[in-house]
């Protein structure tokens, strides 16, 4: 076996301050960045500009409004030439219909989460 038991520890990021999710009720930052603060969806292409939809979660009203926008955009779906479903907003072909599955960070379809 190539490696010794402790020889390949990761060391170079130790200068980052590590805040642990608090369990004592006080506010703290999570060590895990989440996608809660943004919903972004684009097709990666060197020729295309990316389209970003930023969604603030500062208050529920804004969130609701943003969700409505996203839904109405997602509802504008075209049929491609071969009859494949094409998401008008993102250009994704044959992808999942409806709201973006990863909009809250996990992968969900119709309410059931299958990856997180």
């Amino acid at each position, binding site marked *: 076996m190539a490696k010794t038991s*402790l020889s390949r520890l990761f060391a170079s990021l130790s200068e980052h301050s590590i805040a642990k999710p608090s369990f004592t009720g006080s506010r703290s930052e999570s060590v895990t*960045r989440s996608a809660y603060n943004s919903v972004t969806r684009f*097709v990666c292409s060197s020729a295309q500009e990316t389209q970003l939809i930023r969604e603030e979660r500062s208050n529920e009203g804004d969130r609701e409004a943003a969700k409505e926008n996203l839904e109405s955009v997602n509802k504008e779906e075209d049929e491609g030439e071969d009859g494949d479903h094409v998401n008008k907003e993102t250009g*994704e072909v*044959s992808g999942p219909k409806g709201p973006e599955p990863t909009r*809250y960070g996990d992968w969900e379809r119709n309410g059931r989460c299958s990856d997180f």
Partner: protein
Amino acid sequence: MPTKRTLMVMWCIQVSADPGVAGLRYALEVAKHGSVAIITKAEPHESNTNYAQGGVSAVLCPSDSVESHMQDTIVAGAYLCDEESVKVVCTEGPDRIRELIAMGASFDHGDDGNLHLAREGGHSHHRIVHAADMTGREIERALLEAVVNDPNISVFKHHFAIDLLTSQDGSDTVCHGIDALNTETQEVVRFISKVTLLASGGAGHIYPSTTNPLVATGDGMAMAHRAQAVISNMEFVQFHPTALADEGLPIKPKKTRENSFLITEAVRGDGGILYNLSMERFMPLYDGRAELAPRDVVARSIDDQLKKRNEKYVLLDISHKPREKILSHFPNIANECLQHGLDITQQPIPVVPAAHYMCGGVRAGLQGETNVHGLYVAGEVACTGLHGANRLASNSLLEALVFARRAVQPSINYMKSSSLDLSASSLWTRPLVPKSLGSDVMHKILRITKEVRKELQSIMWKYVGIVRSTSRLQEAEQKIGKLEAKWETYLFEHGWQQTMVALEACEMRNLFCCAKLVVSSALARHESRGLHYMTDFPHLEESKRLPTVIFPSSHTTGTWSSRQLHQQPIVKSMV
């Protein structure tokens, strides 16, 4: 009377359920150099790969970078990741995905023909490749097709792996194959193989509520531990906070759900509120972000409430939202609940955390090698150092793909240097099917084993859940020890012998082994990091930023679950 079968192959790949991504990928490569046996406990559609329906992550966009993927992985892993493993996976991932596409896996793309990439929690770029809802299944379909068409690969379905066949050569342990039980014919089959790869997945069923299929009983981890392989980081068990809790449904499902129905974070994101069974909203007590706190915080909070209040589930209420919205966003949840008498537009949803993924496992080097010569590991069964203390979303399929590929050349080289042949097959006692016990005794044993499994799961959930403490872990250790002793005594009092095998008993033995590994690992880490939270060590300790390593114990003492069935021969220069 079935004859004793021994097969000689170059490679033996053990997969507990389904030949998932790791096993299939490896098989296809090594089959170019010799015969391969893939042994699988069930039917080829049951693995955790199949349930990995979200996507697989890789750097496939010019504006993304390997460094960024590495950084995201390391942050998610609470800085416990192995830097070299992270670099290797993030660097080689894109090529592994491209190979899958070349093999015919069909991923969603944009109308300009480029891959469509989604973005999941913890990722700072869009890098999740997916096939609508069924990425895992799509990858597997493409690989299975190639495997079926390969004349050098034989798939042995319904073959349950019992123990690795190993020998001692000085201080080295060497693996020479696997004993398996054909659960359809009740025949023991011995596979002599120059190289063995374990791609056997996770051990979710040490807990009562898990997303894993029934076959995920930690077989590979247990076999490897019994074979003197080093195990690492078993304390890092990933739970999802909100699985549908069947106990809280008005109409209980007719039979126990095999794998949990996870309620998406989107329910909380859309305004769902968490209550305990006294209808007290508890999240604000734990975090200022309340229900919008990170998933791991929510999981701990729910766990704490359940343990403090001795309750079985909490409630997630979205019924205050407009009915049409609920039904259009969450029809899956609505339908599932309605079938069991619950209307989520009127009532709260009962939820409980479910065990999902084991970040730890058999300690592997950068080639998937273990400390047992001739034994390689890939996928969830392995601990490569990629995940550290917490897995980043969609990295697990990627890990499986990369490490399975990396194990190929080293194991081909190892195979070529091996002079192992079928004459080795007589070195180990054959496992014995318990026909002599008679059906009455077997029924009793099966019934007791089923109860013992539930009891073990209950202990694990109660004492080795999401929020831990030294005293609770020690209590778990004691209770598990007593339970195991009680079970083994029962078996042996009823005529069970050391070398006897039956599916349920062997699974139980593996569950005990994995449960004890989780408890030992958890007791060893005197800090809280990532998925491992201890109330008596609630902070991160820089000095403890090291993997937890469990070395094998003596194989001459210990319980039935911690020893191989057979006596390990000491043979010089078998390889």
